[in-house]
C-alpha cells in the first residue's frame, strides 16, 4: 500500500540545507555532540570547520555555549538526538536560551519511537511537551523532508529560539520540492466537511492515507498539517471544529503535552467538540519502526478508528 510512496529522511534534508545556509550566511555557527555523522551536521563540519564545534557527549555544555555564541550575535544551530537535546540539558535551555530569548535553533533528530531498535531510552516521546512549555520557543515538527528544508531556512531568517524535531528513518514525502513553509499556519492538505484530522510529523502521511480510506467509505475528511505547534494556529483549529464538528489529533508523541493537548486547549476554550487522540500512552521498546507504529497504535488504521470514535461521539 505504501510501497509507491517516496521516502526520504528529514535529517538528510537538514544536513543539505545547513550547508546551503552556511554558504549564504557567514554568521551561522553549528554545534554538535559526537553525533554529527548521524544528525546531518557532518557536511557542514567538513565545509566550514571554523564555524563548527563538536563538544562531545556533553549536552549541557552545548546549550550553554550556544547561548554565549548567540548573545555575541551568531545564528546558532545546535544538533543532537531529541532525547539528549531536550531533557538532558533542559535547565540550561530554559535559563540560558529561553529566558533571554536567544537566537538558538535546536534541531534534533532521532525523535519518536520510529528511532526504533535502540529502544525506549533513545525514543523521545516527551520532547514536544518539554519544548512547548518554554514560553519563548517556536516549536516545529515538519511532516517530511521538503518541509524540513523549508522550516530550517525559515528558522535561519527568523530571530529567537526554535525547536525543530526530526526523525531517523526515511519517511513518506507529502510535499513537493520547493514547498513554501508558513510559520504558525496550519496547512490544509485535503478538504472535507465531516471530520478533521490534525496531524504533525510522520503522522501526516498516515492521516492522508486514512482520509483516502474514509473517502471510500463516504466520510469527507479534512486533513491539516500542524507543523508549527507553537505559535499555534488556533484559527484553523476552531474553523475545523466549527465546520466539521469532530476532530482527531495524530502525533508520534506521548498523549500529554503534545498536539492533542494543544488542540484540546483551543477547542475547550473556544469551541468544544469531540477530539479523539492518536498518540502514545506509554513507553515503547526496541523494534523495527513499522512494527512499533503498529504495536503502539500509530498507523492509518488507528487514525480511521479514531475518526469513527469521534464521529460516533458527535452523533
Amino acid at each position, binding site marked *: 500500500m505504501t510501497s509507491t510512496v517516496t521516502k526520504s529522511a528529514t535529517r538528510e534534508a537538514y544536513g543539505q540545507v545547513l550547508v546551503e545556509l552556511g554558504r549564504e550566511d557567514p554568521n551561522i555557527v553549528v554545534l554538535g555532540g559526537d553525533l554529527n555523522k548521524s544528525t546531518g551536521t557532518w557536511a557542514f563540519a567538513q565545509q566550514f570547520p571554523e564555524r563548527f564545534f563538536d*563538544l562531545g557527549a556533553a549536552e549541557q555544555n552545548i546549550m550553554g555555549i550556544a547561548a554565549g555564541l548567540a548573545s555575541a550575535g551568531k545564528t546558532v544551530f545546535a544538533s543532537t538526538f531529541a532525547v539528549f537535546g531536550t531533557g538532558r540539558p533542559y535547565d540550561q535551555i530554559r535559563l540560558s536560551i529561553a529566558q533571554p530569548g536567544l537566537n538558538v535553533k535546536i534541531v534534533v533528530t532521532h525523535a519518536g519511537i520510529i528511532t526504533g531498535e*535502540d529502544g525506549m531510552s533513545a525514543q523521545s516521546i516527551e520532547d514536544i511537551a518539554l519544548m512547548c512549555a518554554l514560553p519563548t520557543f517556536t516549536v516545529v515538527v515538519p511532516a517530511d523532508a521538503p518541509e524540513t528544508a523549508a522550516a530550517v531556512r525559515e528558522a535561519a531568517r527568523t530571530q529567537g529560539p526554535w525547536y525543530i524535531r526530526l526523525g531517523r528513518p526515511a519517511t513518506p514525502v507529502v510535499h513537493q520540492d520547493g514547498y513554501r513553509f508558513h510559520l504558525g499556519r496550519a496547512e490544509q492538505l485535503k478538504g472535507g466537511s465531516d471530520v478533521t484530522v490534525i496531524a504533525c510529523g510522520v503522522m501526516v502521511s498516515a492521516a492522508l492515507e486514512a482520509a483516502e480510506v474514509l473517502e471510500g467509505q463516504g466520510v469527507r475528511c479534512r486533513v491539516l498539517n500542524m507543523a508549527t505547534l507553537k505559535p499555534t494556529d488556533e484559527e484553523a483549529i476552531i474553523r475545523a471544529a466549527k465546520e466539521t464538528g469532530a476532530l482527531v489529533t495524530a502525533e508520534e508523541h506521548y498523549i500529554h503535552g503534545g498536539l492533542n493537548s494543544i488542540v484540546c486547549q483551543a477547542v475547550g476554550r473556544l469551541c468544544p467538540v469531540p477530539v479523539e487522540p492518536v498518540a502514545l500512552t506509554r513507553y515503547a521498546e526496541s523494534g523495527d519502526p513499522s512494527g512499533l507504529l503498529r504495536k503502539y497504535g500509530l498507523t492509518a488504521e488507528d487514525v480511521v478508528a479514531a475518526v469513527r470514535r469521534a464521529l460516533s461521539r458527535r452523533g
Partner: protein
Amino acid sequence: MTNVKHAGAGGKQPATTAASATPAEVSVSPGHARRAEELAERDLKQVARTLRRNILVSIAAAGSGHPGGSLSAVETLVALYYKVMRHDPSNPRWPERDRFVLSKGHAAPVLYAVLADCGYFPPQELLTLRKLDSRLQGHAHIMTPGVEMSAGSLGQGLSFGIGQALAARIDGRAYRVYVLLGDGECDEGQVWEAAMSAAHYRLDNLVAVVDRNRIQNDRFTSEVMELEPLAEKWRAFGWSVEEVDGHSIRDILLALKQAQGVKGKPSCIIAHTVKGKGVSFMENNPAFHGKAPTREELRQALEELGV
C-alpha cells in the same frame, strides 16, 4: 542462521550451539563463583572468544547495534562475572549480590552475552536482540534478568552506582559495586559530579572501570574531546587509580584485587583497550561503533575468532 554458542560457566563443556544448550548446562548456582575459581586463564580466554562470537551473532541478527564498545569490554566483564563478583543467576535480585552497572548502555550486547552464558536467561534469546517483544532491548534495561540499571543516556551510571554503594553502607551489607564507563562518556559533566561525590563519601565499596578504547561515536576521543591526562583527573578527584591492559584478564584481576584492599576512597581502573577487539576490520575503526556487521562481515569475523 548462525547460532549463538554457549561457553559454559566453567568454559569446560565444548562449545555447543544455542539450540542444543540445555537449561542444566547453563544454570549456575550461588556456587558459581567457587567453581569459577577453578577456571584457568586458558579457559577464560575461551569464554571471551565465545562471548565475542555471541556479541557479533546477536548484533548481526538484530541488524543494528554497537559492536565496537561491546568487544572492547569483554575481558573486563569476564574478570568480574567469572572471577570476582558474587552473584546468583538463579536469584538475580539476591540482596547480597555484587552489582555491575553498565553505564554505557549501548554496550548491552556484551552484558547480554555474559548474562546468558552465566544462566540468567537462555542463550538462544540472544537472537531476539532489539526485536519487537524481546526482553533484550537495544540499550540495557532492567526488564532483562541480571541488568541492574536502565541506561542509554550516557553519564548516569556512576551516580546510580554511588546510590547502590551508599545503600550498602546504610544497610551494613558487604556487597561491592562495579560501574563500567566509556571514555567518550566521560565528556558528560555528570560523570565528574559523581566522581567528586564518591570520593567525598569515601566509597571504598565502589569501583569505576573506564573502557579506554580511545574512540567515541563519530571519531577518536582525541579528535572530539581531549580526555588526557585521564588518570590524573581521577586522582585529582580523590580516587585510587590503576591503569591496566584491558584485554589481559590477569591484569584486570590484579587491579580488581588491589581495589578490594583500598580503604577510604573509591577505585578507578582505566582499562586500555582496543575498540572492536578481536575482529581485524572492526579494531580501531570508528565506523563500527554503532553498525552491525553484514552477513559476509560476520562470516569473516567468526572465522577470525575461530569459534
